[in-house]
């Protein structure tokens, strides 16, 4: 294989793996933000989900049970964030960072005994069975969670667009006055959207420990939970675009390691930063004073 193909294969493989946690966290963040609230605590949810998923898989022997446990742990942390933010005058940006700290701390606290032992991992679907090159074969071993995430993106898109509950989420997110006029309980809708969003983020965390990189340690997350906020802005609060954005961000993150396979070891941090520069450029180019970003929920604190 030529250098270009090697890089391409390695990048596709990396993108499929690196993007999955991004995908789940950004979908969760997207749902929460569509209800009019921002959750920076998803970073803590991600780490806690990784730890709980790993520990559950280790004790029960079933990685699938680990995913369920990670989602539940995420939901609990989401309930803390959603519940406290329902109180008047509590700032959701600051509370998110506090929840991030608490979630990370709890994960490290209980996760210490699980750094050494190895837990059963999720299976991978060998989509590269047709290829002869071993690199392509290993590149196309895709986690079922990736497909679950893509399915979740479509499901969330349909939920927001075509269901009664989804319409309620959008109303609460776009105009609290309209929601009050309709007699909707704003706090309850936002609480449920935060809990569900954090459960999705928890699943994203379980991917980190149960599939790729596939172990539990304290340096597992590289800030994907916080980056999800930028990613959702990039995706204009659209779940389908979130999937695309997750692939782009994942590919950018995978570019460095894949360039290393052909001996290019310099400059990959700059590629890694490229999607953020792009996000900023898009923001600066499309926003004008007095006009909100297209697709941005009107009630979002970061929109005012």
């Amino acid at each position: 294989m030529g250098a270009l193909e090697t890089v391409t294969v390695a990048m596709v493989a990396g993108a499929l793996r690196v993007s999955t946690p991004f995908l789940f966290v950004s979908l969760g963040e997207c749902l929460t933000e569509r209800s009019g609230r921002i959750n920076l605590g998803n970073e803590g949810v991600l780490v806690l989900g990784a730890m709980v998923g790993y520990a559950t898989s280790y004790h029960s022997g079933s990685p699938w049970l680990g995913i369920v446990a990670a989602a539940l742990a995420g939901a609990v942390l989401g309930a803390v964030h959603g519940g406290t933010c329902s109180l008047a005058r509590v700032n959701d940006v600051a509370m998110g960072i506090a929840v991030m700290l608490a979630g990370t701390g709890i994960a490290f606290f209980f996760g210490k005994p699980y750094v050494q032992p190895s837990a059963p991992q999720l299976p991978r679907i060998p989509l590269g069975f047709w290829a002869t090159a071993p690199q392509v074969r290993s590149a196309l071993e895709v986690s079922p969670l990736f497909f679950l995430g893509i399915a979740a993106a479509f499901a969330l898109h349909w939920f927001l667009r075509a269901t009664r509950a989804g319409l309620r989420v959008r109303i609460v997110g776009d105009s609290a006055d309209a929601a009050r006029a309709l007699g909707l309980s704003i706090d309850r809708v936002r609480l449920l959207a935060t809990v569900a969003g954090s459960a999705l983020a928890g699943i994203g965390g379980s991917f980190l420990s149960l599939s790729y990189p596939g172990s539990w340690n304290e340096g597992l997350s590289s800030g994907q939970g916080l980056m999800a906020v930028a990613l959702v802005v990039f995706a204009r609060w659209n779940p389908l675009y979130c999937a695309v954005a997750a692939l782009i961000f994942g590919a950018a993150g995978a570019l460095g390691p894949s360039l290393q396979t052909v001996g290019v070891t310099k400059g990959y941090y700059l590629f890694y930063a490229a999607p953020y520069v792009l996000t900023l450029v898009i923001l600066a180019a499309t926003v004008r004073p007095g006009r909100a970003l297209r697709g941005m929920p009107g009630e979002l604190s970061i929109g005012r």
Partner: protein
Amino acid sequence: MTTLADVPAAAAPAARADAADRLYPLRRAAEGVAAPLAALLFAAAAFAIFLLALGKSPVAFYALVWKGAFGTWFSIQNTLQRAAPLLLTALCVAIPAQLGLVIIGGEGALVLGGLAATVAALPLNGVWPPLVQLVMALAGAATGAAWIALTGLLRARRGVNETVASLVLAYIGIALFNHMVEGPLRDPASLNKPSTWGIGDANMLGPIPGTELHPGLPVGVIACVLCWVLIYCTSTGFAARVTGGNLRAAMLQGLPVERLIVLACALGGAFAGLAGMIEVAAVHGRANASLIAGYGYSGILIAFLARHNPLGIIPMAVLLGGIGAAGGLLQRRLDLPDATVVVLQGFIFVAILASETLYGRIAWFQPRGDR
């Protein structure tokens, strides 16, 4: 029926009530102390239940936290050492917050400030050290100021949300930092932990005589006091607070809102950049990944806990530093993981931030009238 003549008569009792209620400012100050204190007690109680569930003694735990944070001269120094960078990164949040801006990108300004300070020191080998340190401080502060001012510019000129912009810029800044430290500026001798060349032992900021404290602490305290004066005792600070209170009124008054936004961001960023310079010049001696320690994020929380009052930042940073300093002792004595202190800090942050909702709810603290 209300006629025009009734209006002053109706308004008068309220005005008289305000004049009579002289103790209200005191009670308002008491509210500002009581609410976080109640939240602190609540968090401590919740954490005690957590410890009981784990079969550990809360009494022994809190005794050790006190001992590890403030019990001995050594632990007090450890506490203050940890508080020092947080004073400056919290200012990076608290100053723009006067204008109603939520800046969460202090981490980026800190690492780039540290990097710039290191770069500034490298060609000055053999120059009089205090001069080198001054140049380093200026380079660090200027870089941090530029980085956050960029967020302010985007906000003022383009209306880009400052929270998202500063977060994204923090990631870009950290990526830039990693690129420089592992690429063009890397000292080839640093194998395991990529670092830049050192600034040289002569250029390090020594401890304050008689202590092991580095000068970051007095710098941070002075910066907090100066910022308090700036915000509450100058017309610029007043203009900033007016803008934060009501943007439209500020614009109608003809206040230079755009300039204030960029200025406040630059000033906050300068402090974060200075924090990076102090970390390099007093602790690490070179720029490497140790600078990315989350001081920027802790600073956000401290600023919010202090309700963006620069003088409130000092006790909050000391509280957080103290809990962090007790970590080692807890690990040795109670066999608890070192993350225990992070859990406790998380409990405290959540409780104090949630206590924001108590303001205005308790009648005793509110203004009284003879209605």
